[in-house]
């Protein structure tokens, strides 16, 4: 049985006095345990909406979404989320942010402290435990958000353009860190992005979405073997994938700009 199933998902928005805008139309996708799947598409193709539906933040209108066989009815700690704007709690320190989810899990205080420290170490924020988010750089903030999400030990990880707000250099560093985390603790991940290279570099499979209405055009399996470092981006195979996916996305991206 697949871990995540999207079955004939349809979603529309109604604005006052206008016809319904169809954001997602007949989306079908299955994700297996341990897979890293990217949702790739231009802005407005409904890829974030799809993620929010799986997260349980937006109520499902039609179709089925199954998480390990059970329909999604609301948010839950089995699906950890990382957002583009980090969504940290700015009034809490790094330590308190990471502890937030754990406080709701009935751990002893000592177990909690140890686990928080373990995740602070994992995202290399030792020395910043008592800083507030406003005192951190964008990359550091997103590392806190990732640690906060992973600390509650979710079954799957949902990432909504997590590196979209970062500068190019920081983004590359974050790619390596994310891959390192995935090597240590493999986890099913759904990763929303509009960056073709990022999708190819990180994913096992890439679902290309088209816009208006949003639907899955094609699912491409990325067969590059284990990612050993950024050198892989120089390989011919990598660039073939990028070129192919770009050609698939391009028509829609141009359409979205008009």
């Amino acid at each position, binding site marked *: 049985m697949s871990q995540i199933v999207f079955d004939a998902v349809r979603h529309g928005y109604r604005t006052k006095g206008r016809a319904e805008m169809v954001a997602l139309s007949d989306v079908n996708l299955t994700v297996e345990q341990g897979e890293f799947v990217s949702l790739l598409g231009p802005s407005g193709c409904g890829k974030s909406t799809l993620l*929010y539906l799986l*997260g*349980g*933040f937006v109520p499902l209108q039609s179709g089925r979404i199954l998480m390990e066989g059970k329909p999604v009815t*609301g*948010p*839950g*700690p089995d*699906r*950890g*989320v990382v*957002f583009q*704007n980090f*969504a*940290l*709690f*700015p*009034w*809490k*320190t790094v330590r308190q942010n990471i502890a*937030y*989810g754990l406080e*709701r*899990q009935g751990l002893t205080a000592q177990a909690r402290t140890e686990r928080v420290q373990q995740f602070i170490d994992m995202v290399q924020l030792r020395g910043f435990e008592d800083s*507030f*988010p*406003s005192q951190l750089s964008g990359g550091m903030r997103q590392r806190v*958000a990732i640690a*906060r*999400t992973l600390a*509650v030990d979710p079954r799957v990880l949902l990432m909504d353009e997590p590196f979209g707000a970062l500068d190019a250099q920081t983004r590359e560093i974050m790619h390596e860190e994310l891959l390192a985390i995935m090597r240590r603790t493999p986890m099913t991940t759904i990763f929303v992005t509009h960056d073709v290279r990022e999708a190819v570099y990180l994913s096992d499979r890439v679902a290309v979405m088209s816009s208006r209405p949003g639907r899955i055009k094609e699912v491409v399996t990325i067969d590059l073997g284990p990612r050993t470092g950024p050198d892989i981006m120089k390989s011919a195979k990598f660039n073939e994938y990028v070129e192919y996916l770009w050609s698939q996305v391009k028509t829609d991206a141009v359409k979205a700009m008009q």
Partner: protein
Amino acid sequence: MARLISFFEATGSLFAILLLWYLATRYGTLSEFLLPSPASVLARIADDTASGDLPTSLLLTLRTAGLGFAIAALAGTTLGIAMARIRLVHWFFDPLISLGFPMPKIAFLPVFLLWLGPTAASQITIVAVSAIFPVVVAAFSGAEGVEKTQLWSARSLGASRHGLLWQIVLPAITPQLFTGLQIALPVALVTTIVAEMLTGSDGIGGIMLGAMRFADSAGVFAYIIVIAIAGTLVFRGMERLRARLLRWHPEQSH
């Protein structure tokens, strides 16, 4: 040396005013009735402090202002958040708030006096009514502006719907809430003094008006100085509290 200069710059003109005041009463032609000397005003403050009259009336004033302000803060925050989250509440209160905000609420004081008599209750009511509007507006716009993703993150980290209010919404709106409270605080003080004058209370306002009726200028001046100092301390306290609670806020660093 540099510290001495900056101290002088920060207070010099205040001392100059005091000196002018002294010289005017010492060598000027103004009567003690129109402008009592600093010495007699100070003596008056000392006497009334020693007799216990001044501390009693100051405490009474602070109690009225404090209770009215606290009611405005609690009710205003609750209403503002409720307006942001419950459509029906928003529908009902939005026109009342936008209509009531710019009105001089003090005009309703005679109405409360009619309903509640010249009591502490009517004073506290008019203070709360005057001070609540900026709090409601601040809490409402704060709660409206809470990031959806913050609420979603908290939910997916295991927070209950009920928990969101205390764990996310309330801390997230504190910066805006404090801006509202800092607008409401002087309103509460101004209103308290007027309400005390009109109800003949034993608070500072009532005592001042009484002193004026008996042509007791030293008394009037003494209590002006007392309320000015008390106001300063209350404002400082509020700023301290803000700085403490909003340590995490980027605007707080300066």
